[in-house]
């Protein structure tokens, strides 16, 4: 289990990350969401020890993380890169060795992963001769090489084509199934919604929301959409109902609670011609916009 405790980073007077605390439990996939400059990359760099925190600490399995622990973490930085002028297989083998694998084991593992990602034929080619998409695949392989105990991935899905997104998701699921905690950041919120067990929303260096998608939704205000055969303008007169939008036969309302909503439905049925009365489930983007606008 990875735990961040009051992690803070200052650049001069600028507070880039402000007392960020959350956990990534064993086998869980945690999505890290936030706008540009929210502090996601800085936080991840501190987790990986690439950047020293100004305050706070990173705990791994309950104790402060060591360089030895970090050598077993898989990391994909926001700024991608491998050696452009070196062949794919040797440099992946080298990176595997840096993570503590023996040369033959690293070579074997690299070869397996390259084949899995359809790069089996290109192992001897220089990285720069690969297409951008294939370079991305090599980058993914580099991050999961050393049988990692934790995955920290900064925007792992950016720039991937749909099939690579699927391969990547599958790879992440395999890791969580083995109990490896995964922390990744993304701007693709529907992807985060689909994959993650829990979500951390970062805004201006602070955690503004934290929990599973359901929990975040449950915290969202109650909304219903009512569609009728005739005009729905009458909802304006119902007590306890805030009308958000009325467009002829359709109205979006925010009832004070479920009882008010129920009463509204009874009224509507009494008027006749109800086509739809449904709870509006906010998308993650809407929740995000809500919390990030604070």
């Amino acid at each position, binding site marked *: 289990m990875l735990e961040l405790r009051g992690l803070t980073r200052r650049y001069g007077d600028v507070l880039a990350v402000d007392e960020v605390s959350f956990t990534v439990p064993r086998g869980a996939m945690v999505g890290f969401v936030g706008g540009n400059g929210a502090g996601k990359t800085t936080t991840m760099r501190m987790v990986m*020890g*690439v950047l*020293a925190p100004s305050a706070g600490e990173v705990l791994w399995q309950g104790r402060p993380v060591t*360089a030895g622990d*970090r*050598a077993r*973490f898989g*990391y994909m930085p926001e700024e991608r890169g491998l*050696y452009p002028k070196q062949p794919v297989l040797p440099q992946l083998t080298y990176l595997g060795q*840096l993570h503590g694998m023996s040369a033959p084991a690293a070579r074997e593992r690299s070869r397996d992963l390259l084949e899995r990602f359809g790069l089996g034929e290109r192992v001897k080619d220089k990285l720069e001769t690969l297409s951008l998409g294939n370079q991305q695949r090599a980058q993914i392989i580099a991050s999961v090489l050393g049988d990692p105990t934790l995955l920290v991935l900064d925007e792992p899905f950016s720039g991937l084509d749909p099939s690579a997104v699927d391969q990547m998701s599958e790879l992440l699921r395999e890791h969580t199934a083995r109990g490896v905690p995964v922390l990744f950041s993304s701007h693709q919120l529907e992807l985060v919604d689909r994959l993650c067990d829990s979500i951390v929303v970062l805004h201006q260096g602070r955690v503004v929301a934290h929990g599973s998608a359901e929990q975040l939704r449950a915290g969202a205000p109650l909304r219903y959409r009512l569609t009728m055969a005739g005009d729905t303008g009458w909802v304006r007169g119902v007590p306890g109902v805030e009308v958000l939008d009325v467009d002829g036969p359709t109205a979006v309302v925010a009832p004070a609670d479920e009882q008010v909503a129920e009463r509204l439905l009874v009224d509507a049925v009494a008027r006749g011609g109800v086509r739809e009365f449904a709870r509006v489930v906010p998308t993650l983007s809407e929740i995000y916009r809500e919390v990030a606008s604070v």
Partner: protein
Amino acid sequence: MATTGPDATSVVERVDPAAMGALSFDGEEPTVTVEEVADRSAAEESVLEGDADLALVGGPGEWEVLADGSPPTTLLGAVSDVVRTDALAANAEAAGTSVTELTAGTEVRLTDLAEVTEDEGMPEQVTFLLGFGFAFLFYMAAIMFGMQIASSVVEEKQSRIVEILAAAIPVRQLLMGKVAGNTLLAFGQMALLVATALVGLTFTDLDVALPGLAEAVGWYLPFFLLGFVALACIWAAAGALASRTEDLQSTTMPLTMVLVVAFIAALNLQGVWREVASFVPLLSTLLMPLRILEGDVSWWEPVLALVLVALFCLVTILVGTRLYQRALLHTSGSLSWRKGMRLSE
């Protein structure tokens, strides 16, 4: 030689060919052959026709040598010597003394200094060439391998792989690996060149200088090693300050300048300045082995210089590592040395 009479013949016969000094081109000693002719006109004819190089005519007190254009000076000198000795002996006897008494104390004993110093030091041209060789080897290695270190750092930085590396292993280890690898290569190449030069030297007349040379080379190696390592860390820092290969030119400039100045200084300094400079780190690598070669150092001097360069090495490792660690992940634009020092980790 042509002669006219027994007196002249006797003079020529006593010419010592060895005293004529110069050997002929084929390495044989010159010989003098005498041919007696009837009279002066026969002698003249013999010289003019080239049968004889010179002709000796006349008698004691009035010797005359006949030549055709350019007389061979060594033969002329040798003949004159015999005549002079004869005359001297005759005059001495007339004056009631002897040649030995007359010439007592006139001889000057010659001591060839060049030959005496050869046992203790090197011929001057050898030390100059070696000095240039030592300085040039270090200069080349420092520039070539230094640039290589700097560009490999900036390559990792520019391709952004550095963040993966920094996450996997401590940055300090990355730096140490780079420095160790390049030092090994530079040292190996230098050792190969020096060995080749020494082996080559055994085929020349200068191989008498070998024992003294071996000592100088023995001192050169540790100076080279420490001097190189000291620079290597700074080169790595220079690489880390750049963010693209194009920036290398400007971030490595101070280093290149220092090296060029040191190189020129090492070749041009004289006297006390040279002695002082031979203790200054980096300059000591260029100068101290040379001074050892010239044989004018006490035992503690190279030791002290070595300790100084080792201390300097420690300082550059600390400063270089600090700069490297801080500047390595600073990917937005190149940094100045001053700015680099102020970066936080």
